[in-house]
């Protein structure tokens, strides 16, 4: 009924220059960017971040620092006393934040109890289950017949893993966790409480960590295989040189040089959180929020989620493509065909 020609590049008379007064050459296709922007602003964005690490590494503080507001679990639930839970719990809290007209629904998923027991075997299991449950919910909604206009996205986009600043090497728990979870979610490892390391110790620690990750085949964000083009690769290589970021978190402001900035005040000086000479918090924030947020969500949606979906659909043995059904039938026919060849 219809025929499609190959994409054809027509020769436009005087195209390419965007001049508004002479409407001859300007069609207005690039107005779609503005339209998309408007639509995005109206819809708002969603971001789900998970923080994983032993207690006392400053996870909640870092979250508060990243989003410049009290988004951590501790700020929401007034906890009478600090107690370490007996099992790994998953607590997720959502916040609506807005900046310059851009609305975002931020969900912070905290994992108190991770790595805190004496026997930490399989402490990653509840976390993996949670992540897979989110994928499952999304999948169920997607294969519904009557489905919502916008499927609520509760999939974990990014998991920040806190490495204790020992200065030596990764612990077996760290390696185990990261190697398992890097397959289902984007992992961003950070060195917590980095103000206990000198710059040389920091560099040495980072190199060791990078080496160990490579040796164990752990691909943390930004993954090498998902670089789209040369430009991406250049940018991402620079980032890969710096991970894991050595961060310091703080939600208290101090006066330094006449300015009020976030920092940690000690007897020997004030550590400025956003000063890149002091710690790499700014790089982490830029990576997560200012430059790569969309990319993180895309990788979660188009790669991790699709991997989960393929596995799930295959294991429940439902064949959506009719090819496979006809293939099995034909195979059976040819097997039985030989019996008919020689009638008695």
């Amino acid at each position, binding site marked *: 009924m219809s025929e499609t020609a190959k994409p054809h590049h027509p020769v436009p008379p005087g195209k390419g220059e965007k001049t508004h007064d002479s409407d001859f050459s300007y069609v207005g296709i690039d107005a779609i960017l503005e339209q998309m922007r408007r639509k995005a602003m109206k819809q708002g964005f969603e971001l789900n971040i998970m923080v994983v690490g032993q207690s006392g590494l400053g996870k909640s503080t870092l979250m508060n620092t990243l989003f410049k507001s009290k988004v951590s679990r501790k700020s929401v639930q007034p906890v009478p006393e600090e107690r370490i839970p007996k099992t790994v719990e998953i607590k997720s809290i959502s916040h609506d934040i807005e900046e310059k007209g851009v609305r975002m629904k931020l969900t912070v998923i905290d994992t108190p109890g991770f790595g805190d027991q004496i026997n930490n075997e399989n402490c990653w*299991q509840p976390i993996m289950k949670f992540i897979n449950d989110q994928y499952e919910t999304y999948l169920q909604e997607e294969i519904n017949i009557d489905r919502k206009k916008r499927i609520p996205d509760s999939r974990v986009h990014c998991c920040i893993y806190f490495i204790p600043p020992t200065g030596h090497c990764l612990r077996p728990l760290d390696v185990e966790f990261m190697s398992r979870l890097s397959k289902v979610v984007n992992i961003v490892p950070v060195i917590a409480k980095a103000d206990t390391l000198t710059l040389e110790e920091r560099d040495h620690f980072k190199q060791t960590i990078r080496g160990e990750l490579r040796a164990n085949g752990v691909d943390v964000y930004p993954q090498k295989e998902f670089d789209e083009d040369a430009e991406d690769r250049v940018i991402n290589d620079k980032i890969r040189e710096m991970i894991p970021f050595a961060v310091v978190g703080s939600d208290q402001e101090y006066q330094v040089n006449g300015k009020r900035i976030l920092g940690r005040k000690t007897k020997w000086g004030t550590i400025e959180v956003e000063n890149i000479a002091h710690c790499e918090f700014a790089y982490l924030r830029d990576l997560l929020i200012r430059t790569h947020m969309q990319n993180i969500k895309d990788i979660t949606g188009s790669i991790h989620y699709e991997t989960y979906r393929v596995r799930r659909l295959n294991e429940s043995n439902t064949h959506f493509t009719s090819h496979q059904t006809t293939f099995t039938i034909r195979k059976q026919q040819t097997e039985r065909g030989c019996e008919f060849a020689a009638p008695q």
Partner: protein
Amino acid sequence: MASTEIARQAGEGARAVPLSGHVGFDSMPDQLVNKSVNHGFCFNILCVGETGMGKSTLMDTLFNTKFEGEPTQHNQPGVTLKSNTYELQESNVRLKLTVVNTVGFGDQINKEDSYKSIVEFIDAQFEAYLQEELKIKRTLHSYHDTRIHACLYFIAPTGHSLKSLDLVTMKKLDSKVNIIPIIAKSDAISKSELAKFKIKITSELVSNGVQIYQFPTDDESVAEINSSMNSHLPFAVVGSTEEVKLGNKMVKARQYPWGTVQVENENHCDFVKLREMLIRVNMEDLREQTHTRHYELYRRCKLEEMGFKDTDPDSKPFSLQETYEAKRNEFMGELQKKEEEMRQMFVQRVKEKEAELKEAEKELHEKFDRLKKLHQDEKKKLEEKKKSLDDELNMFKQKKTAAELLQNQAQQAGGSSTLKRDKERKNNPWLCTE
């Protein structure tokens, strides 16, 4: 061993939290836009209208290029759809534009089935997308979306009312695609007639329940312009790719002896409005409506048709998987039954054939026996005859030898017996010849 305790706080109604500093996620729309720019956009327009309405010319004018193709003839036997894909680029935006033309629409004597090929085409695009979405290993991210985002319906400029073909076609298409009706070749209608024509058209559409695409008015930045444009529907357009010198500028226009119709002059025609609405303001909304409304409707109907339901009669949610399993088993069962049947039939036929062959064999044997018998009979007869002949021959020989013997004896006693014989002969009255 660790176990989970998932506590979800304020899931739906998340708390609003004020920010005490600049976080930086206001760059999110930019990130999104950048990603889309790298990815490219695609837009698919379907032009429905009778031959000679100026569809191709309007497309050329809208996108300011010369798309290929010559005008079609009027003698098409049925309605076919021809689609062409073009890659346009403006500043840094790459657009994959697909223009689908209806060839032969309105040219047949019996136009009852004209709309069917259009509906089939639109459904085929939805189906292709649905298939891709249902695949196990899918690449939705890089899928070339061919679903029709906008349908420009070209109304002939009669000045009176809509043709019944128009009404029927638009009614069939309004739930499948965003319809934007336009009055083609509107330089044939005068201004006063045009106003009346537009009113007539809109009232006919409303009274027949045809839902045409309304420009969205929920976003404040475009609500005003969209609502004012909504009142100008259907747009009366004129298309032209020829340029005419007017004053000191070259404008796109159609030149007549009595004047020049400028395409981009808002007093002359609504082309600028159409371009504004279709491309510059609502392209994204058209794409979204296609995806969230028309495609979802198609998907729902298609899946329900295949027998999938979200809840069974007891209102317990069916999982798609269970339904698939059940259906698959049913299907396999049917296939097996069919196979069995075919097998039975085959075996039967073989038996019948065998019986036939046996019959034939038997017959042949009988015939052979009969012939053999005949042959033997014949042989016997012949032998008898031969025997009797031999007997006769022997007897004859005997007689011959006896006769010869007698003759010899007679000759020996011939001298004496000749006289006797003569005397006998003389005495024999009978032998006397005197």
